[in-house]
């Protein structure tokens, strides 16, 4: 069953076609990666799917609702109820603690619940950093807070725009593991990335260029990969986490010395 369906979607800025007649189907529970050079329209597409922007032409069906034709108020509601967002520039509210940032998503969605928010942080391995402000967290930790925030309301789709763009490899692996878990729980994932390694772990990769969908690659080995790494993820995770934290902390320290 198609959760998301783009039919001949274009987004036009003046005489620039940021998206040019793109059609795409994403099934419920599918994990899709989007690649393409800079300026090819990846973020534009994410904005449209994420109900933050409207397409100029074409139809965008999300759960059989055409979100290209509805009011911005209605868009806000759908965004709140169905979509979890993860960004390259972590985008946390800088005067709220990690747990408060997670609760912010609950606050707009339904009811803030500190216990549940703590559980989400625990899940991304940050229970002990809950009371820290974003400025006191490393980049990897901030990104994990964002993931906790994106999954707290159990959205149907998680959209991630360059989630690992600013992370080192260890933190990148943590994020990928989290995605894998979400996927196994049935969450639909759409991940924009420049990094072939991040794209490889998805079920399907589509490539945009100049606003056009130019290529589509199905990952044949997805199921084996998924199962193999799931086993290793559980045992390796804690060690990886520790080393990741150490790395980012030592990185911070050297920066301060300068």
């Amino acid at each position, binding site marked *: 069953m198609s959760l998301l369906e783009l039919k001949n979607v274009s987004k036009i800025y003046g005489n620039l076609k940021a998206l040019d007649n793109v059609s795409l189907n994403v099934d419920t529970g599918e994990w899709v990666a989007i690649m393409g050079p800079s300026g090819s329209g990846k*973020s534009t597409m*994410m*904005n449209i799917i*994420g109900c*933050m*922007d409207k397409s100029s032409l074409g139809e965008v069906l999300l759960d059989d609702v055409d979100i290209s034709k509805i009011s911005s*108020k209605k868009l*806000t*509601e759908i*965004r*709140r*109820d169905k979509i979890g*967002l993860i*960004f*390259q*520039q972590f*985008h946390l*509210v*800088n*005067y*709220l603690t990690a747990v*408060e940032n997670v*609760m*912010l*998503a609950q*606050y*707009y*969605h339904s*009811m*803030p*619940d*500190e216990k549940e928010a703590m559980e989400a942080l625990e899940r991304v391995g940050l229970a002990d950093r809950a009371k820290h*402000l974003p400025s006191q967290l490393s980049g990897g930790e901030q990104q994990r807070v964002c993931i906790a*925030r994106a999954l707290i309301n159990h959205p149907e789709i998680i959209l991630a*725009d360059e989630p690992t763009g600013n992370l080192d490899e260890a933190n990148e692996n943590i994020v990928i593991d989290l995605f894998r878990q979400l996927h196994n729980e049935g969450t639909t994932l759409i991940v924009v990335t420049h990094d072939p390694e991040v794209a490889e772990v998805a079920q399907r990769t589509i490539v945009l260029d100049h606003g056009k969908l130019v290529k589509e690659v199905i990952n044949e080995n997805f199921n084996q990969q998924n199962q193999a790494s799931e086993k290793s993820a559980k045992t390796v995770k804690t060690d990886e986490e520790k080393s990741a934290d150490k790395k980012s902390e030592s990185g911070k320290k050297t920066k301060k010395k300068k």
Partner: protein
Amino acid sequence: MKKQNMFFRMITASLLRRRSRMLVALLAIMVGATILSGLVTIYYDVPRQMGEQFRNYGANMIFLPAGDNDGISSSDSDRALADIDKNNIVGVAPYRYETVLINERPVIAAATDFSGAKATSPYWYVTGAWPSESGQVLVGEDIAELYGVAQGDEMTVSFVPANTSEVSAEKNADENTKENEKSMKFTVTGILDTGGSDENYIFISLQDMQALTGESAAYDMVELSISATQDKLESYADKIGKDVSAVSPRLVKRVTQSETTVLSKLQSLVLIVTVVVLLLTMICVATTMTAVVTERRKEIGLRKALGASNKSITGEFMGEGMMLGGIGGILGSVLGYFFAELVSMNVFNSSITFQPLLIPVTLVVSVAVTAAACLLPVRSATDVDPALVLKGE
């Protein structure tokens, strides 16, 4: 956790953890609220202060003997006083004047009730002390200079009954004067500086005058200080004029009238200053809020991306603004009281009366002014496009 709790947690976190910007706005609101509550306190206290102040310039009513009468008997004076509401009487000072001799030279001696004189003539400046018992005298500055007396000196005051001295003058002036003359010794307790003709007098108590002259004559004049409006004073004067035929009450008009004109001018000045200060506060808060909204565009976009409606964005910023207004208002009303007290001490040399009602009023006005100032900047916050959070910066 309730939604409101998270709301307050968010806005307090924003105010506490992003202090610098908000501090400017808070300062503006606080100054505005201080001026508001301070000036309004003064506005309401000035009539009272001014009333007291103007009464300092002397009595506002005097009793004179009516028609051909030589004086006012103390019983007539008491009957006249009974017509005035006791609570409004600030002071009553009866005066009896006689010519006495000091070192053979004539001097006017005024006999009065010193505690009454203190109330009706608070501008009298005494170097030393006021007389407190019999045999003590307060000496006008000119007399003190003339005779070279100072505090603590003794002076002999003599009295010659008027008719006998005239008769005896025809025969043998020197002898007769000495015969009829009565003398009393007085101790100078203080030198009186009034800036007026009273500096040519000496002041003794009514009892001493009676002892000196050997006769209890009527008062030549009674001075009154009454705390009442012009209309009320007039109605008192009318009533006394009708009730007590021996007393002719007069209002000292000049002072009471100037009191009202100066007052209304001062009050309108205070009002204008208050309005101007509130306007300035509003401009400052609006400017700060505009800067704050610009500074937080990314955060607003993020909140929208997380599903915040325009209504909740508006609510959050207004909440922050109004909380700031509330804190500023409370601080301002406290500071305003001290400000008013300072002004009052410096200008009127007296303490201000505390107006409890002014705290909630200041609070409501500061919150309202802040809310009004936030309206436009906060509206612009809702224009932020959530799509901007995905745009790289």
